[in-house]
């Protein structure tokens, strides 16, 4: 029988590799199994490479708007293959970085597809079909998720794409129809719009960015339209006709049929957990609506088997997965990790403009029975924003009227994804409006808008 590990992680995404390293730090004999890429989707096909592409788009847009800043620039054009190469190079660099980190922490890696064969045993099959068995006291399922595929919109390697194909496209689409307007959908929409593609967003619900605060989502919609995107809300794709000349996409909006002619379709209708072929059934590991069921310590119904990240219930975010990875490792080593509070997980969307949020939005706070105070501050009133040439956007804060608890914060505009963490710390430490008002925010920064938004909730904003 092969050697036995204390802690064996299946999947080396942002949940799995962090979990394995944390376990190793705690003195557990940890190992990790990966079937494809170290760093998972996040690092290879998600968070990081899309940020690289969006940065390219931003640089291009700077050039287009250079005259606004008193800079003469002409002839800037998009070189998509070069953009994709840069994005892939960064992914590769980070992928190697993860392998280095695992090595540094003495976590051995096994390449291959993993399948649970018992409570303490995993079978790993490598690409050549060779199998080996690994034994462990604790096993962590961190197999992640993949793009949801709707019938009729299966990625075909050409005209119909998922995020994976959209990330390595060879040609800028002449007209891209994006189905689904969550973070993935609007980020690619922003990218290809910046590169000159005609873009149509199709959303089944009554507004784009349905997980965000309604007011912020409405501002995003207005801004996207100003940038030339088309938006169809309450719309369903009822059929897609493919021909060598392009796609005819049938869209049903409030009972009315419309045919949109497009070169490409990006399906971004969410993700599904990778729960198949990993041996869940044999061990009767409980699932719920397609995800593995876990308790606050990330244990499945089999106590020595943990599940973390996208293979469990959402939000489907890398930082949520990493955090759960730490919780599972600490629990398995006999500690008492703190519970992850889902309302304290910030979310970021890197469209143009950026969107960032944490906690309750206005509707959900009211639905939860809070009487609220809402603060708003526009980018227009912030000196640094004007200096940057970024006068579009808003910082919105929501407080519990009774206790002064910061229930949520929602932002749209330049660099807000870097600002939201300030409010995440505030919420995590349970500050009230009083401390936030008393904190000194440096001038001139975009962060001053966070201060002003808090002041505004209590009728004390200065610069508006």
């Amino acid at each position, binding site marked *: 029988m092969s050697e036995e590990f*204390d*802690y064996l992680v299946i999947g080396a995404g942002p949940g799995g590799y962090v979990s394995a390293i944390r376990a190793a730090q705690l003195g*557990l004999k940890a190992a990790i199994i990966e079937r494809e890429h170290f760093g998972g989707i996040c690092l290879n096909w998600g968070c990081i490479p899309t940020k690289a592409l969006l940065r390219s788009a931003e640089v291009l847009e700077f050039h287009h708007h250079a005259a606004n800043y008193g800079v003469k620039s002409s002839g800037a054009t998009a070189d998509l293959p070069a953009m994709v190469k840069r994005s892939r190079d960064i992914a590769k660099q980070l992928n190697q970085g993860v392998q280095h980190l695992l090595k540094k922490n003495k976590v051995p890696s096994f390449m291959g597809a993993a399948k649970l064969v018992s409570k303490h045993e995993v079978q790993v099959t490598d690409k050549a079909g060779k199998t080996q068995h690994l034994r462990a*006291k*604790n096993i962590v399922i961190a197999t992640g998720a993949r793009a949801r595929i709707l019938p009729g919109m299966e990625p075909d390697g050409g005209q119909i794409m998922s995020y994976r194909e959209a990330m390595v496209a060879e040609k800028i689409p002449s007209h891209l129809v994006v189905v689904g307007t969550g973070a993935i959908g609007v980020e690619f929409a922003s990218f290809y719009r910046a590169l000159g593609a005609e873009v149509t967003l199709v959303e089944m619900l009554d507004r784009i960015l349905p997980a965000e605060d309604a007011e912020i989502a409405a501002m995003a919609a207005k801004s996207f339209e100003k940038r030339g995107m088309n938006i169809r809300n309450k719309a369903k794709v009822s059929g897609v006709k493919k021909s060598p000349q392009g796609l005819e996409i049938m869209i049903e909006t409030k009972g009315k049929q419309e045919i949109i002619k497009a070169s490409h379709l990006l399906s971004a209708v969410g993700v599904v957990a990778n729960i198949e072929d990993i041996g869940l059934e044999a061990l009767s590991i409980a699932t719920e609506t397609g995800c593995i069921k876990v*308790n606050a*310590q990330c*244990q499945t119904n089999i*106590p*020595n088997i943990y599940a973390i990240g996208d293979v469990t219930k959402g939000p489907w975010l890398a930082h949520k997965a990493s955090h759960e990875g730490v919780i599972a490792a600490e*629990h*398995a*080593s*006999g*500690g*008492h990790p*703190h519970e992850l509070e889902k309302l304290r997980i910030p979310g970021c969307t890197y469209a143009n403009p950026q969107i960032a949020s944490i906690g309750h939005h206005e509707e959900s706070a009211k639905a939860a029975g809070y009487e609220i105070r809402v603060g708003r501050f526009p980018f227009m009133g912030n000196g640094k924003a004007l200096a940057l040439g970024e006068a579009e956007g808003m910082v919105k804060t929501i407080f519990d009227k*009774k*206790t*002064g*608890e910061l229930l949520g914060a929602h932002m749209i505009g330049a660099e807000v994804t870097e600002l939201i963490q300030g409010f995440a710390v505030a919420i995590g*430490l*349970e*500050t*009230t409006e*009083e*401390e936030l008002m008393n904190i000194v925010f440096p001038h001139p920064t975009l962060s001053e808008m966070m201060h002003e938004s808090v002041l505004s909730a209590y009728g004390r904003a200065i610069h508006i």
Partner: protein
Amino acid sequence: MANPERVKASPLARRIAKTNGLDLSQINGSGPNGRIIKRDVEQAKAPPQQKPTAAIQHGAQTTTQPEIMPLDGMRKTIAARLTEAKQTVPHFYLTIDCRLDDLLTARKNMNAHLDGVKISVNDFIIKAMALALRDVPDANAQWGGDHILKLKQSDVAVAVAIEGGLFTPVIRAAESKGLKEISAEMKALAGLARDRKLTPDQYEGGSTSISNLGMFGVKNFQAVINPPQATILAVGGGEERLIPINGQAVVANMMTVTLSCDHRVVDGALGAQLLHAFKHYIETPVALAL
């Protein structure tokens, strides 16, 4: 201005406590290093329903290597307080046998009239100790360093074993409570103890403690005093014994108890008086109702 001991609490917890008139020093903090957070104050505002015991730890265990178990807060408290007690409190011990037959009959009759709550022998012991302290008020006291603090009611703490340690929740003014009330309160406190949800006002202070190991077949033992209390009663299991009565061997249900006393507060004769009063109530359960 005095410099009160700093209570670690989040600003939000402070505000909710202030609006609801809660004393933060009476609230257990569940945040990092015992910091009181919103959840703790909300819980103190509305004590939660009893929940099933939290999932058992499933840590990784190596096979033959000794394992280092980090100390949790409870273990640290037990270690510090009992070391202090055994090293600084001059203990002495008094042992006495009590006949249980009348108590067992009384208990059977009472329970026949009750549905739901069942009064346990331990509930009788709590009540008997509370009345004994009332009858011997000099023994209802705590050592205060340069004074003795005489208590005016019988706050009886009861040791409750939980996973990884124990708690001693206190039944306050147990002398004035009925058996049924004591029984219900004990059940609720034991449940909270097992869920580690006791608040300091539910376990701090007290006149005396009761530690009962009878259910484990222990016949007699000596317990360590739980400061600042001056006594603790160690209760062994009830069993049938042959005892001589008027020259005849009679089968009787007997229980042996040992009272540990802090000699600074309770001298031998006083301790004996207290123990005698306790025995009286156990053997004459009808007096418990008076």
